């Protein structure tokens, strides 16, 4: 189905200086009620030597109108989900419901202090408890902690749990010999980084030419007896389901290790298959992906950690439990790895995720998964004629292509990505996973309609044509944005990480 490929045009767009360049002495954007207690000289409250002596020099002085215009103008420079398809592979950029935003702003939640006594926060604790139950059901893993603030935080939590479990199981000494974490070469960077944080050394597993975990290599690595565990993403970062997952878990378990699953790709599985049933011991979820809590330009996230009954005693404290109809904080888990974050984690995200789950309902959750996988399959289908698809297996929720054919004309993945911008699309994830040269990882999610998928396919095909007929057009893209490609190398060489008043700009 051919579509009209002009998803965008160009239009006037406001310029805006840094707020510090806009600041004018004497402008104010706030008003407080007058102080209603008798004022004392401040130095009688705080000794001079502890008082600020720079008069907050440099902090901007602007009016409320200035602030509104400043941010509204800058906002128009962003692409966002609300403007269309955002096919960042591995990021699951799905629709962020307004309803969930409203729920998170209900005063009874938004104004609740985290140290409120449990009996005065029963509703808030019930939300945590209910979400824990739902996530346990969805993952097939009974133990859940919502404390981690993002995926990587959940990884650290999960890996520390593995370590604590093995310490307990084998005793410190034997456990000390198990300090290897196996991670596929296709894994996300946070996996090895999190393993390292937990004091593990990383060994990399090769992927097969089919894009799956190399069982032979896995067996070989497990033979050493030093393996504490495996961190596997499933579907993996190539968008492929690890068909041998059961066998993989068996191998690791037989070697005395545990299986950690990176749940960033759960949007391919919710309601269809459960990690717990596959033999996975512990997993993290990204509520800011699969469960649609807004990405907010980089966060906040929420990375719940779910594990088997066996591992439950090691979860962070406090646990939120239900006893005789009352919800309470339970600190009494002597084997716990401890606390990974102050208070309860990113609570506002929990409210949104629970609203997402309840709005979809059990059938809707499965429906979303099916729609997401179908959309990816549809794109895969539409692009194979023009782009190199390195793996033949049918993709799940995302699909990887490469720039192999385009490179002949000197056009690379980065250029294709930048050119997509001219067609009105946010580019896909590029150069990840690292094992695929010139990778283009495309994840449409369920939130895109067929017409826009067709527009995307047409745009990609058109770029493939351009790469042959007019490579420079692609190499110099984007052509329609307010700024062109920025010199990132120069930026990193002499980094300017903050504004400074002109005169001072050279100092330091």
């Amino acid at each position, binding site marked *: 189905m051919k579509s009209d490929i002009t998803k965008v045009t160009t239009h006037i767009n406001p310029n805006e200086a*840094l707020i510090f360049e806009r600041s004018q002495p004497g402008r*104010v*954007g*706030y008003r*407080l*009620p007058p*102080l209603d207690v008798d004022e004392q000289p*401040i130095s009688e*409250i705080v000794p001079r030597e502890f008082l600020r002596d720079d008069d*907050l020099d440099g902090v901007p002085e602007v009016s409320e109108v200035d*602030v509104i215009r400043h941010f509204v103008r800058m906002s128009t420079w962003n692409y*966002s989900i609300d*403007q269309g398809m955002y096919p960042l592979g591995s990021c699951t950029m799905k629709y962020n419901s307004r309803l969930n935003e409203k729920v998170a702003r209900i005063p*009874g939640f938004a104004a*609740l*202090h*985290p140290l*409120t006594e449990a009996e*005065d*926060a029963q509703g808030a604790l019930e939300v945590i408890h209910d979400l824990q139950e739902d996530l346990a*059901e969805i993952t097939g893993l009974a133990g859940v902690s919502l404390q981690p*603030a993002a*995926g990587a*935080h959940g990884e*650290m939590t999960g890996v520390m749990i593995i370590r604590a479990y093995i310490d307990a199981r084998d005793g410190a000494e034997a456990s000390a010999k198990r300090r290897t974490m196996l991670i596929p070469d296709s894994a996300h*960077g946070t996996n090895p*980084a999190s393993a390292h944080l937990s*004091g593990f050394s990383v060994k990399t597993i090769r992927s097969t030419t089919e894009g799956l975990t190399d069982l032979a290599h896995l067996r070989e690595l497990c033979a050493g007896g030093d393996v504490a565990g495996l961190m596997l993403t499933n579907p993996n970062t190539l968008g492929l389901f690890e068909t041998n997952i*059961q066998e993989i878990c068996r191998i690791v378990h037989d070697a005395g290790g545990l299986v950690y699953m990176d749940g960033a790709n759960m949007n391919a599985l919710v309601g*269809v298959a459960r990690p717990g049933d596959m033999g996975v011991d512990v997993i993290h979820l990204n509520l*800011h992906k699969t469960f649609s809590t807004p990405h*907010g*330009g*980089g*966060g906040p*996230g929420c990375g719940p950690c779910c594990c088997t009954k066996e591992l439950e005693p090691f979860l962070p404290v406090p646990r939120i439990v239900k006893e005789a109809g009352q919800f309470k904080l339970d600190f009494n888990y002597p084997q716990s790895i401890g*606390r990974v974050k*102050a208070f*309860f*984690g990113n*609570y506002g995200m929990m409210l949104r995720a629970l609203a997402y*789950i309840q*709005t979809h*309902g*059990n059938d809707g959750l499965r429906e979303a998964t*099916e729609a997401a996988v*179908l959309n990816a399959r*549809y794109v895969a289908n539409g692009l194979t004629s023009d782009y190199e698809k390195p793996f033949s297996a049918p993709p*799940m929720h995302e699909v990887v292509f490469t720039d192999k054919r385009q490179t002949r004309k000197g056009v690379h993945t980065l250029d294709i990505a930048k050119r997509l*911008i001219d067609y009105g699309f946010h580019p896909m994830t590029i150069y990840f996973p690292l094992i695929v040269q010139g990778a283009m990882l495309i994840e449409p999610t*369920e*939130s895109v*309609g067929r017409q826009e998928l067709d527009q995307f396919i047409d745009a990609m095909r058109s770029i493939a044509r351009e790469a042959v007929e007019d490579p420079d057009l692609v190499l110099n893209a984007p052509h329609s944005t*307010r700024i*062109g490609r*920025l010199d990132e190398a120069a*930026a*990193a060489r002499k980094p300017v*990480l*903050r504004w400074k008043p002109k005169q001072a700009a050279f100092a330091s």
Partner: protein
Amino acid sequence: MRYIPNSPEERTEMLHQVGLNSAADLFDSIPEDLRLARNLNTTAALSEIELLAGFEQLAARNTGAKRTSFVGAGAYQHYIPTIVDHIISRSEFFTAYTPYQPEIAQGTLQTIFEFQTLVCQLTGMEVANASMYDGSTALAEAVLMAERVTKRSKVVACGAIHPEYLEVISTYVQHAGIELLHAPNHPETGQASDARELLDDKTAALVVQSPNFFGCIEDVAALAEKAHSVGALLIVAITESISLGLLKSPGASGADIVVAEGQSFGVPLSFGGPYVGLFATREKYARQIPGRLVGEAYDKEGRRGFVLTLATREQHIRREKATSNICTNEGLIALAATVYLETMGRRGLQEVAAQCAQKTAYAAKRIGELQGFSIPFTAPRFNEFVVRAPLAAKQLLSRLALERNITGGLALSRYYPDQPNEILVCVTEINSRAEIDALVEGLASQATM
């Protein structure tokens, strides 16, 4: 499902187009026996009306949210200008991803650059990152960074650091071969004691919170000098960032790394999160910073823009050798803090801080005069202080709540079972004189019972 654009009919057509007969076929690569044969045992779909009613009912059971409150202890109630929520609710901000494509993400990038600058200005430091999860994890990362920078393995933490922050540090460092020592606080002043005997040439960092957990303002300059004298770094943690509007900046006092909880900057209490961790340090350590950094950059035509930079520190490039495993941070909350700081501006931040200090001084004076109550610590304070009551704090506070609908503070027994009668009281610009007087009366009435 109203969030899924394609109708069932459209999806059937698409399935045929990709050569499949049914949705089930999409999952052929999943072994039969792993496929869930049943529906998930979660609730059936709810309409907006039903869902909102349900959450409103739950919210109504959070009785604590409706009380006049004097609880701080790491999360503070402050006035939030209305425009903050309006701006962070702009589709262009809250539905955007991490700014990986600068040509269509300058809105996010420029705001982060402003955030980094504001954090530097307030903390008195030279570089700041794009945010950490919260104050507690930022502090843990600071400790790990100190170890990287100094290649030393001992860390001394002053006593009056937020107990939950200390727990988080312990969790983070437990596998990093770091030895964590605790220096007791001075019983009269409530400030850090002379930790000199704990500091030596193995010490990577001295960690202090100021104002500390008991509300006492620490002598940061003196501690910096002690730390530096043994070649250790001074890490300053701040839980109440509004104090930066009044108190000397840690940077000016010699801190090497400053971390803070930014919740006080326009972020609702929201039962503990999402908040935002501030992380700032010296320029020379820029390449050791955890998390994302935004820097200035130019295009071919010389137009200024902003990009994510120094990425070689990060996990997606360095993997296990990265400065941290953090990826997603607290972008939107950092934006909220940026809007807050720019709206309040130079004068507003000074006035908020001054009002907190003035009202707290008033409250402390009145409570200190109460029969049976005392204020144990003598150190200067900002907007929190400890009150020693003539009876068990938990009991006193629950009576106050019941009888006067006031949450009078935090019973320190939550963290220090050996301090049953102590209450940590916080007063901000939100608390009117009338509320403070009601608290004072409430306390008085309890004492005389």
